[in-house]
């Protein structure tokens, strides 16, 4: 069972890493932030899987902390984005 949990965790990490391509491609800031949000929730899931595989319950605390921090990261992004009053031109539309 531990092997299965390990490989499921590795699969989730791989998927989340592929999702990071969206950070590079953009185009908007919200799209990049969505990839970061996926990274957060995927990392929480992978940490839970790895923690159950190794029987180390401290990893669950790490997952709890990461869930909190990734929520704060997104909220900070939105506060920052809404503070700018002028509409920002999308990078893709710049000639």
């Amino acid at each position: 069972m531990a092997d299965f949990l390990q490989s499921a965790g590795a699969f989730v990490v791989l998927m989340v890493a592929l999702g990071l391509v969206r950070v590079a491609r953009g185009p908007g800031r919200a799209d990049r932030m969505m990839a970061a949000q996926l990274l957060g929730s995927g990392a929480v899931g992978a940490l839970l899987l790895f923690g159950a595989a190794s029987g180390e319950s401290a990893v669950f605390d790490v997952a709890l902390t990461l869930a909190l921090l990734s929520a704060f990261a997104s909220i900070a992004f939105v506060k920052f984005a809404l503070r700018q009053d002028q509409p920002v031109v999308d990078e893709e539309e710049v000639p």
Partner: protein
Amino acid sequence: MSTLLDVLSIVAIVAGAFFYLAGTVGLLRFPDAYTRLHALTKADNLGLVLVVIGLLPQVDGVLTALKLLLVWLLVMLSSAAVSQLIARSARRRETRP
């Protein structure tokens, strides 16, 4: 009984991993910010929930299981709030009409 629980865990975790796959594919392939947000919330909610359901029979002790449920509740709450906020910020900036 133990074999049955193992099978339940494997089915749930495979389904959860499938939703992570679907979330990544949707994030990469969908055309605009709102549909990408739709794919992202599927990965957030369904993927993590299925992984937690699959792990519940595998951990030892009620306290550890409660901690798993706590992680799940926190991620549910934060992803619901954050997806609202991201959608609002995308709409306010009108990155794509």
